[in-house]
């Protein structure tokens, strides 16, 4: 039901309807923001990218062919913007940012709690996955995308989606093991 509504909104946006753009933005911007934030790991950058993503939707609405759900199409645009932003950032800046993040996490009360709470430990490990692994885990579990949809967003074959998810989960087990939790898998 919602997919049809999104398609109608896209058709209206293609005709230059600003109200339709507001409705589409209100409906999807939080999820798109969270997807981008998990990739770029910087709130200000993620917020800037959101307006770029929706500006692209405004510009390209007339080219949308309805081959995928609108939300899948939007996440594909968001991913492209996030990866482009990451490529633009100097490597040194990224390293410093990563180091800062690790230091911050060390002081985070949640990290201290994680030593006792398995759920918090698992969340900590989910944050520590590589960008490639984080995106597939988020797309499958949080954005509820099928194998086919993930393949479309990331631009890889469906078999590779399954393999990547397997290795992401395997890495999660390794990270948990380093923190003292043996899941007995793989």
């Amino acid at each position, binding site marked *: 039901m919602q997919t049809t*509504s999104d*398609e*109608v909104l*896209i*058709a*209206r946006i*293609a*005709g*230059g*309807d*600003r*109200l*339709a*753009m*507001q*409705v589409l*933005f209100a409906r999807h*911007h*939080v999820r798109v*923001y*969270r997807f981008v*934030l*998990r990739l770029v790991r910087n*709130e200000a950058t*993620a*917020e*800037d990218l*959101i*307006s770029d993503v*929706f*500006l692209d939707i*405004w*510009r390209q609405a*007339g080219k949308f062919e*309805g081959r995928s759900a609108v939300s899948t199409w939007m996440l594909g645009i968001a991913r492209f913007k996030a990866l482009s932003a990451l490529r633009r950032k100097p490597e040194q800046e990224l390293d410093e940012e990563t180091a800062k993040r690790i230091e911050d996490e060390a002081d985070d009360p949640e990290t201290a709690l994680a030593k006792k709470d*398995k*759920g918090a430990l*698992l*969340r900590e490990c*989910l*944050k520590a996955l590589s960008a490639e692994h984080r995106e597939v*885990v*988020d797309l*499958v*579990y*949080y954005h*509820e*995308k*099928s*194998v086919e*949809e993930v393949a479309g967003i990331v631009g890889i074959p469906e078999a590779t989606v*399954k*393999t990547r*998810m*397997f290795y992401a*989960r395997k890495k*999660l087990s390794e990270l948990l093991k380093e923190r003292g939790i043996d*899941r*007995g*898998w793989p």
Partner: protein
Amino acid sequence: MNTVEKETQSEIEALLPWHAAGTLSRADARRVEEALAADPELARRYALVLDEFGETIHLNETLGAPSAHAMEKLFAKIDAEPARRPAVSLNLGGRIAEFFAGLSPRTLAYAGTAAAIAILLQAGIIATVMMKEVKTGGYETASAPTNPPPGEGAFTLIRFAPQATQDDVTKFLEANKFSVASGPLAGGLYKVRVSAANLPKSDLGAIVKKLQGEKIVNFVATTE
């Protein structure tokens, strides 16, 4: 186990994350269900997938949202765009979309508001019916109401099987003396009170384990 069986098992195991998220086709979901029922080791691994699923939702839901300036920035950029010439579309989908696009913004706004109100009403009715039926189904003394104050008790996050009817859910809640505390949340989850009193983690874990065996329950995890 022969080579073919091993290949089938690893193929089914690769589908577990999508089974947890409810995004498999019916045929694949049936294959996974059958394999889970027949293979205790696969069922144990599925429990790990469910943990990951629950914690990924938890993690994303705590990420916050962009500020109100995000929309302002977007429309400032849109204002700076050159005026648009509507594209001509000849396919059926395009013509249907064009019809809707022909409606005035006011009509669209009314339709959107009406749809939102209908969804809210429906959610409210379902939640009210579920909570009311649970309340009237249990024993209640004149002096001590059975419903504990909000926030007290032990809770789980539950997603019911897609084929479960409202009647099935009501009966399930009554039979177990559970009540819905809130929902539906992201991913079709409901926060369900499984005990009026706070429970030790081990007891709550045992309840979750028991519920994982219920056909009506598609996903269950502990929550605060």
